[in-house]
C-alpha cells in the first residue's frame, strides 16, 4: 500500500466516471429510439450532473449531508476494489463478499440521508429498495457461493481469470447456464431496471428516495448512481462473462450487457414490490438452488462439460 495505489485508484475513479456516464448517455438514446423518440445527445448525462452540481441546494440537517458523503465515499471505495480487465488498484482486495457488503455502506448512507430528509416518500422508497435488495440478492449470492465452492476462490479477479482462454464456452454464464440466467435477472433488479424499479417508481411515489434532493446533493446522487451501476455490471461481467483480457474487451462486454438490460427494461412493465419478491423467490431462487446442487454434488460446470 503506497502512494501509487492511491493515484491508480483515483485515476480509476475518473475513468469509470467518464466511461459509465457516457454509456448512460448513449443508453438514454437507445431507450428513446425504442420509444420512437429522437433522444438527447450522448453527453447529456454529463451536462445534467454538472448543472446540478453548480446549483444552490438546501439541506435538512447534518445527517442529510453526512449520508450523501458516506454514500458516495462507500461506493467509490467499492469501485476501487473492482478488478477491471485484470487491473486492481489495491491488489488482493477483490474478495466478492467485501465488494458486495462494502456496496451496502454506500446504500446505507444513501438510505440514511434520504430518510433524514424527513420526507415520508423518501422513507417509503428506501423501504422498497431494501425489500428489492432482499429479493434479488439471495439467488445471486447462492450462485456466487456455488462458484466460490467450485473454484476455491472468492477473489473476483481470479474468478474472472479462470474463465479466460477457453473461448466463449469457458464463461461461467455457459458453464453454469442457470446461474448465468439468474445473474442477469438479478442484475436487472440491482440496477433498478424495469420490471424491478418500483422503489424509484417515477410518477408513483414522487421519485422515491431522491425526492428531497436538489443542487449538489442531487449531483452527488447522479455520480453515485453511475458508480453503482459500474460496480453491479462489473461484478456480473467479471463473475459470469469472463471479465476481459484487455480493457477493450472488457468495455465491449460491459457496454453490450448494460445496453441489453436497458433494452429489456424499455419493453417491460413494472412489478409491485411484493410481486418482485415473489418472482425472485420462485423462479431465480429455484434456478440458483438447482444450479448449486448440480455443481456441488456432480461437479458439472467445474470441469468444462463438453
Amino acid at each position, binding site marked *: 500500500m503506497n502512494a501509487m495505489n492511491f493515484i491508480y485508484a483515483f485515476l480509476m475513479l475518473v475513468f469509470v466516471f467518464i466511461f459509465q456516464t457516457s454509456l448512460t448517455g448513449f443508453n438514454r438514446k437507445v431507450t428513446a429510439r425504442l420509444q420512437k423518440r429522437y433522444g438527447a445527445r450522448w453527453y447529456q448525462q454529463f451536462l445534467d450532473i454538472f448543472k446540478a452540481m453548480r446549483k444552490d441546494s438546501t439541506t435538512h440537517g447534518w445527517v442529510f449531508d453526512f449520508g450523501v458523503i458516506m454514500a*458516495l465515499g462507500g461506493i467509490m471505495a467499492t469501485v476501487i476494489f473492482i478488478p477491471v480487465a485484470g487491473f486492481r488498484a489495491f491488489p488482493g482486495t477483490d474478495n466478492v463478499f467485501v465488494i458486495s457488503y462494502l456496496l451496502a455502506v454506500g446504500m446505507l448512507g444513501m438510505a440514511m440521508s434520504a430518510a*433524514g430528509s424527513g420526507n415520508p416518500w423518501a*422513507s417509503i422508497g428506501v*423501504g422498497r429498495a431494501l425489500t428489492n435488495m432482499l429479493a434479488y440478492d439471495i439467488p445471486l449470492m447462492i450462485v456466487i457461493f456455488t462458484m466460490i465452492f467450485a473454484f476455491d476462490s472468492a477473489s473476483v479477479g481470479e474468478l474472472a481469470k479462470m474463465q479466460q482462454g477457453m473461448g466463449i464456452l469457458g464463461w461461467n454464464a455457459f458453464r453454469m447456464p442457470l446461474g448465468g440466467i439468474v445473474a442477469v435477472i438479478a442484475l436487472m433488479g440491482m440496477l433498478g431496471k424495469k420490471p424491478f424499479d418500483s422503489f424509484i417508481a417515477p410518477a408513483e411515489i414522487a421519485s422515491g428516495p431522491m425526492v*428531497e434532493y436538489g443542487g449538489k446533493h442531487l449531483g*452527488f446522487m447522479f455520480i453515485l448512481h453511475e458508480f453503482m451501476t459500474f460496480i453491479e455490471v462489473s461484478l456480473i461481467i467479471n463473475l459470469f462473462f469472463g471479465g476481459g483480457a484487455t480493457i477493450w474487451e472488457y468495455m465491449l462486454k460491459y457496454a453490450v450487457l448494460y445496453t441489453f438490460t436497458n433494452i429489456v427494461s424499455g419493453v417491460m412493465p413494472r412489478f409491485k414490490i411484493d410481486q418482485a419478491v415473489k418472482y425472485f423467490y420462485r423462479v431465480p431462487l429455484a434456478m440458483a438452488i438447482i444450479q448449486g446442487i448440480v455443481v456441488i454434488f456432480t461437479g458439472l460446470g467445474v470441469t468444462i462439460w463438453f
Partner: protein
Amino acid sequence: MNLNLIIIITTAVALVAYLVSKVNDKAGAAMTVVGSLFALIAVFLLRDSIGTEITLLYFNFNLTVTGWYFALVMLMAYSMTAFFNPFWMKKLIYPAGYNFLYLLSMAGTLGVFFAKDFITLFVFWETVVWSSAFIIQMGKSRQAAYVYYVISAIGSMATLFAIMFAYGTTGTFVINDAFGGLAAYPGRAIVIFVTFIAAGMAKIGIFPFHVWLPFAHGSAPHTFSPVLSGGLVKMGAFVALLSVTAFPAYKIFGGMASFRGIPLPIYFMMALGAISIVVGTLMAIKQEDAKKLLAYSSVANGGYILIGLLMLDQVGFAGGLMHIVNHAVASAAAFLSIAAVAYRTGTTKMSEMGGMIHRMPITYVVYLIAIISMAGIPPMGGFVSKWLIFQGLADKGLLFIAATAFFGSIGSFLYVFRPLSAVFLGQTFTRDLNKKEVGVFMLFPMVVLTLLSLLTGIFPNIFLRVVTEIQTSLGVLPVTLAENTIVTNNGFLDAFKVFIVFGFGFAIAFVLFIARRKSRRVELMDTYTSAEFIHTRELLHYSHSFYAPFERLYEKAPDTMKLYHKAAVKISEIGNFAEAIFFGIKPARTVLLVMGTVLIGIIAGGVLS
C-alpha cells in the same frame, strides 16, 4: 487474584450492594459498576494463570482460554451496562434486589465458563437462569419472565438429563472424561448430544426455543436487555461449543452418515440454526417495538454463532467465536442506545418516536455503528466474523445453510434500518423537541462499545489471535493470520486495507462536497409534499408497518408460541381430567376407585407373572 476470590468477592459485593441499596439505591447501583468493572479487570488479569485448576466448596474450576474469552465478553456486557443502572433505579420495584441479582448472575456466569465438571456447570447455569428471571419480572411484562423461565427450564432439564445420562454411562462428572468416554456408546451418544445441547439452544434462542427472546429482551428492564442479548445469550454458545469440543461430536459421530462432511446429528442442529436465522430475520422485520426487533435480531445472530461453532473447522469456527464478541458488542450498544432514547422519551415503540438524531446525535452514532456491525457491513467487526462464516460455508459447500445465512445477512439490512429510520431519522415529534442528549455517565459505555466495534472491524487480528489460541487448545487447526490479513482456503481479507480504502473514498467525497457551494439549512417540515400543507410533524413521519408489502407475504406464517400454548392447554386438560376423576365430595367414588385399583392390580399382577 485467583478465580475463587473473584467469585467470592463479586458475590460479597452483590450482598453489600443489596444492603447499600436499602439506604440509597443510586449508591447501590454504583456498586454494580464497581463490582462488574472489578470482575472484568480481575478476569482479564487471569490470562497468566490459564491452565490451572482450582476448587471452591464442591465446585471445580478449570481455567481455559475458551472460558477466559467467553468470560471477558460476558463481563464486558455486564460492566458496560452497569453504567446505566443508577439512572433506572426509580423505575424498579426492587432496586436493592435488582442490584443484588445483577451481580449474582454475573458471578454465576463466571462459574459456567470455568466449570470443570458438570455439577459446577449446571449449578452456576441455573443460578444465572433464576436470578435473571427475577430481574426480568421487574420490567414491563410478567409473562416475559414466565416464558423465559419455562423455556430455560426445558433446556436445563434436558441438559440435566444428558449430564446424568453421561454420568450413568461413564461414571464421572468431569466434562472431558464424561463425554470422552462416550465413543463406545454411539446410540447413547446421540441422545446425550441432542439433550445436552438443548440448554445451549434454549439460551441462544435457536428455533423452536427462540420464543422467549422477544418477550424477555423486549420487556426486561432497559438496563438488563443489553446484558441478556449481549451477554447471557452467549452462555448458550458456550454450551454449544462444549457439545462439539468436549463432547468430541465429530469424533463420536464420525462413522455415521454425513452430509458434506458434517455428521447428520450435527447437521440437524446446524439446520435449526439456519431456521432461526430465517425466522429471526422475518420476525424482526415486522416488529413495531425497537427492543423486540433487536431481540429477534439476536435470534438470527444466534443462528450464525451456532452454525459457526458447529462447523468446528479452521475458518467457520473462528468466525463463530469472533461473532460472539462482535454480536455482544454490537447488540449491547444497540440496546443501550435504545435504552438511552427510552430514558428520554419513555417509550421503545418505534411509531411513537422520530427524528431523535437532532436531539441525541451521539446516541445516534452509537446506534449507527452498532447496526453496521450487526448487519455485517465493513468496516465493522460484524463483517469480519460473517465473512469468516461465509468462507467456511463456501469451503464446505453447505448450500442450504449458506442460503439462509445470506438471507439473514441481507434481511438484517431491512430490520436494522427500521429503528434507525423510525426512531432517529425523519420528523422529530413535537413532544420530543425539547429533549436532550443523555449524560456523560451513560454516554461513556456507549462510546466504549462503539470504539470496540470499530477496533474489531479494523484490527480483527487482535481478537483472532485469541481465537487461534482457543482453536489450538481444542485441537482444531487455527485460522491463518498474517500481519493484518486473515487467510482462508479461498480468499483473504485485509480489514485494515478495506478501512483505509473506505476512508480514501470518503475523503474524496468529502472534499468534493465542501468544495461546492454551501447549502441552505431548511426546517425538517419544509419538504416536498405535493403542494399540500401539513403542519403535524407526527403525520409526516413514515414509521408504522415499514415493510408492509413484504410483511404481507408471510403474515399467515404459523407462530411457534402457539405450540407452547397448546402444550400448556394439554397439560391443563390432563390436570382437569385428573381433578374431575379423583377428587370429589362423595366418598363413594373414591372407594370405588380404590377397589378398582386393587382389582386392576391383581389382574395386572396376574398377567405379568
